[in-house]
């Protein structure tokens, strides 16, 4: 096993870029007393190398229309009657999020340059481990492996909030941890249950994605399992009413933590719905869709309303995340290609625009050590470049056409309307109004109006480093807004295939008791990863 793993690490494989951050984190253990600047630069260089790995990988395996790549599978944990495999693969659904992760990592480090004052090596270490966790969760094709990565994400984030956070960081960190843990434990039970059921039917336990997709379960089983998965993911998203950890976590987390949290971690929840919860339990998902839609729509309106009355910049942005993720959930539950495309894009969009907003809130915090609206006002005069980026990002978040937010929201709403959820869509669309209300309030109270606070009079404008952190984000916002096609196209085949198999299964009968579907040739149950012809393996050793 270890030899196979090592070979994968050395080869041009998914495994390499999943574990590269972890490997690169090892020297940090011995750099505790190294000068801070060295650690910072080390982290930045590592993150750039990681980004390079990701981009070159994506380019190398791009086949013109999409990509489906899998690392060679090998056995990871072998027990009698139970084989857990190490299986990772990437397709159009995970690709955007993977690239987003790679993009955000250096930006996060740049954004933390000043804000983090203690234990830099630990911070970079946490960030790198977190990256591995995220990337791993995004590419894991064995549910056991997925769960492991899922939990790996949790701990560094917990540390980041708990160590480098604000005043109530412990409360926030514990809240974050308990919320997430509670959900994921239910998911673990569901995963084990599925593995066991598979074992009952096939003779040996399996947690492989493609194996478990073959399970046809009775509606009652599906409903419970779906509920367990959905709860774990809904907490992560977070959906109303499981969202209260988010504002606290964001407010207390350091800038980098917030960016990663909002930018990527939350997406794992929606990704989980798309990748696991819906394809596994189509009937239950269909049955429970109205409830999820209600929660999604309530989240949109609720998040927006609550964001509006916040007195803390960061909390406002945090609540806006709830609203934005509500859109994503709406799109995912709508089960419509347009909506799914929009949802996937919106995940990226949210990562970019909210990430940028959190970064800038952090920059303000670095300068003024406060995040309260009452301490700001009229900053546009003092720090014009900041104002430009801030307004730009806020507008992207509002969903202004020609910026990224619009594309995602538009496709989501269009798709869900098309899918027949008209009134949900209409209510959700009203979130567009509220988005303008709260984000413009944010801009207004921060940038416009007379300069009332003397302390603000001599704030320095953005430094080159800060611009370097923000510029890529804003460039992507504009690019996606103006020409979203290159960003939508890669994931379309994968989404379409998943949707097709979802619909096929939904159209099929509901099993009376757990059965194992025999995947006949041509039956596209696991479209992206089963079809060997469509699959290309990365150049690892052949097992």
């Amino acid at each position, binding site marked *: 096993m270890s030899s196979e793993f090592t070979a994968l690490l050395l080869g041009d494989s998914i495994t390499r870029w999943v574990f590269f951050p972890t490997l690169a984190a090892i020297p940090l253990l011995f750099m505790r007393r190294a000068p801070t600047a060295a650690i910072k630069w080390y982290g930045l260089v590592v993150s750039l190398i990681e980004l390079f790995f990701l981009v070159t990988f994506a380019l190398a395996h791009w086949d013109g229309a999409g990509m489906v790549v899998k690392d060679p599978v090998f056995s990871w944990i072998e027990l009698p009657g139970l084989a857990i495999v190490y299986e990772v693969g990437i397709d159009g659904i995970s690709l955007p999020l993977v690239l987003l992760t790679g993009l955000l990592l250096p930006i996060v480090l740049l954004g933390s340059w000043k804000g983090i004052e203690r234990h830099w090596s630990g911070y970079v270490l946490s960030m790198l481990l977190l990256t591995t966790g995220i990337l791993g969760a995004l590419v894991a094709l064995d549910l056991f492996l997925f769960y492991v990565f899922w939990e790996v994400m949790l701990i560094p984030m917990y540390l980041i909030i708990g160590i480098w956070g604000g005043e109530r960081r412990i409360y926030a960190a514990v809240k974050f941890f308990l919320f997430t843990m509670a959900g994921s434990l239910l998911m673990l039970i569901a995963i084990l249950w599925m593995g066991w059921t598979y074992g009952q039917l096939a003779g040996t336990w399996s947690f492989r994605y493609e194996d478990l997709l073959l399970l046809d379960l009775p509606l009652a089983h599906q409903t419970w399992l779906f509920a367990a998965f959905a709860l774990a993911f809904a907490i992560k998203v977070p959906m109303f009413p499981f969202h209260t950890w988010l504002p606290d976590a964001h407010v207390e987390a350091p800038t980098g933590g917030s960016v990663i949290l909002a930018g990527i971690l939350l997406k794992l929840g929606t990704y989980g719905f798309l990748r696991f919860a819906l394809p596994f339990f189509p009937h239950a998902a269909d049955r429970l869709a109205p409830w999820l839609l209600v929660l999604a729509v309530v989240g949109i309106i609720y998040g927006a309303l*609550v964001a509006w009355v916040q007195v803390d910049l960061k909390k406002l942005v945090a609540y806006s995340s709830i609203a934005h993720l509500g859109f994503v959930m709406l799109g995912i539950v709508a089960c419509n290609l347009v909506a799914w495309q929009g949802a996937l894009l919106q995940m990226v969009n949210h990562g970019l625009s909210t990430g940028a907003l959190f970064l800038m809130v952090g920059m303000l915090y670095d300068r003024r050590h406060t995040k309260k609206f009452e301490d700001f006002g009229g900053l546009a005069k003092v720090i014009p470049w900041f104002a430009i980026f801030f307004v730009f990002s806020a507008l992207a978040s509002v969903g202004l*056409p020609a910026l990224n937010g619009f594309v995602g929201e538009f496709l989501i709403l269009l*798709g869900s309307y098309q899918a027949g959820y008209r009134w949900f869509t209409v209510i959700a669309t009203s979130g567009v109004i509220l988005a303008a209300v709260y984000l413009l309030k944010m801009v207004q109270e921060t940038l416009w109006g007379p*300069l009332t606070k003397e302390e603000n009079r001599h704030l320095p404008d953005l430094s080159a480093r800060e611009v370097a952190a923000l510029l890529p984000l804003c460039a992507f916002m504009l690019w996606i807004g103006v020409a979203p096609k290159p960003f939508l196209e890669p994931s379309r085949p994968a989404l*379409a295939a998943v949707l097709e198999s979802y619909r096929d299964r939904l159209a099929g009968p509901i099993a009376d008791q757990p059965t194992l579907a025999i995947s006949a040739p041509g039956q596209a149950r696991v479209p992206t990863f089963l079809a060997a012809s469509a699959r290309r393996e990365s150049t690892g050793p052949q097992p």
Partner: protein
Amino acid sequence: MNALELLWLIPLLPFAGAAVNGILVRNSQKGLATAVGIGAPGLSLLVALAALWQYSTTRPGETIQQAVYVWTTGGFSVDIAFRLDPLSAVMTFVVTLVGFLIHVYSVGYMGHEPGYRRFFAFMNLFMGAMLLLVLGANYLVMFVGWEGVGLCSYLLIGFYFEEEFPPYAGKKAFVVNRIGDFAFLVGLFALFATFGTLDFAGIEAQVLADPASATAPYVFGFSVAGFVTLCLFIGAVGKSAQIPLYVWLPDAMAGPTPVSALIHAATMVTAGVYMVARSNILYQLAPEISTVVAVVGAATAIFAATIGLAQNDIKKVLAYSTVSQLGYMFLAAGVGAYVAAIFHLATHAFFKALLFLGSGSVIHAMGGEQDMRKMGGLRRHLPWTYRTFLVGTLAISGVPLLAGFFSKDAILAGAWERSPALWAIGLVTAGLTACYMLRAVLMTFFGKFRGTKEQAHHLHESPAVMTVPLGILAVGAVVAGYAGKIPFTHLDWLGGFFAPVIAVIPGHEAQAGHHGLALEALLVSASIAAAGIGLLVAWRIWGRNRGLDGGSAWAARFPRIHHLLENKYFVDEIYDRIVVRPLAAIARACWKVVDILIIDGALHVGAFVTEMTGDLGRFSTTGNVRNYALYFFAGVLILFWWMIF
């Protein structure tokens, strides 16, 4: 070179100008900023003129569509595409021409502002977005422009961001617009869900092929077309400041005057009218919504006109006048007179831009003073401004042979056909318009100067860079009317030009409105009379060097009405009470009660229960090793006992 293939350049040039001015140019490089700021819309105007010339000479009436690139694919596929047809041609002409003139004017007006470069960047951005809006070949591009102009409106209203009020007004404008946009979006979803495309041409073709698909029942008793048009109309109501979403426009006067002229009079606010006209095929299939459009338009027209009577801020008067005139246009669109609506749109663009720029010249001269009560007798100091302003006033009042006369007449004629009541409202509005506009002229330019000595000392005519555009617009305000239908004749160039735009749907042909000459004469004379009465009343009250006394006397005679009008029927206050505050209260309740009290409360109760359990349990863990040893010992004893006995 085929100018028609350069359509994409028309919006792109201003965008480029905005980008250059916004990012590359520095504040100190004023000349460069001017060159870029003027040059971009100027070039755009040239390209537009060339394209329009080529269009009207070689392919009049045709629809020219030009796809630039594919925006999205997959389940929803749409191109970024431009479309030139008579409707967009007229709009492009108006926008580029008036826009360019206002840009030129701004060089003088904004010359001393610190945000000069920023101003031109925003203005160019606006031009680009507006052109995108009018040139877009599908609803999506239109929506992009639609929101783009909204953004620029927000930015430009809040141009003086260091003051308290302008940013607030900008935010208000954006949010109110967003309410309309929300409906617009829903309309687009419905459209796409029904027709599977957002392309104007595609939708038109489908509807023409199968009108029943559009009239099929949809929701709440609306047909597809009804629902879509209602949604779109709500969008238009937001953008074009109609009841009940007009409240942002008067506040939007907080922006620089050229902005008011360009965005809040000539172009952006008329986008709603353009959109309704653009969707006329659907409106024709939804007569009940058309009626709604007409009624809302008429109501807005008279409502805003009454408010205009009692305003003292010169720009507020013009703002309410704009609202009123926009109502007029919607009245026209609602009664099916789409040509008249666009006609009035065009003429209004000229004379309202003229009026705003004129008022800007006055304000410029008065050192920023906008209250007409502190002006008076300015005609001696600002002769050119006075003359052109007067031309604009007469034009908007509907004085015969000026532009307003023809376009208003066309609208009233259309209204008469649908309903005499609407016509009557329109007529009264026309009278009120004449009245309050002349009031503004009299208060501003006649009588004695009521301002401070200092202001009197500084009074001066504006530079040529401002007065020349005034002159050109004044010419437009005079001659533009002749493009449309001229009463008592069959001359109707615009009508002919527009014919292809107005869809003719099988089974829904509008009955050809050919009224007799007598009726036409009656209608024309009625409108002339209304204008005359309005002007006369104004002269009687504010004229003859009475200054403010006449108005005060009338105000004293009807104090309640005056109070109501002066305070704009308290609509802002009502909205604040019934919408904003309750919503804020709900939001606060959501936060404080639902989030903190209920959800977190439940969480904390759970945590508390856990903690208490742990507290009880922890008495056993004293931390004292001896106690643990005793437990251990007890365990050993128990085990021992169990094993032995």
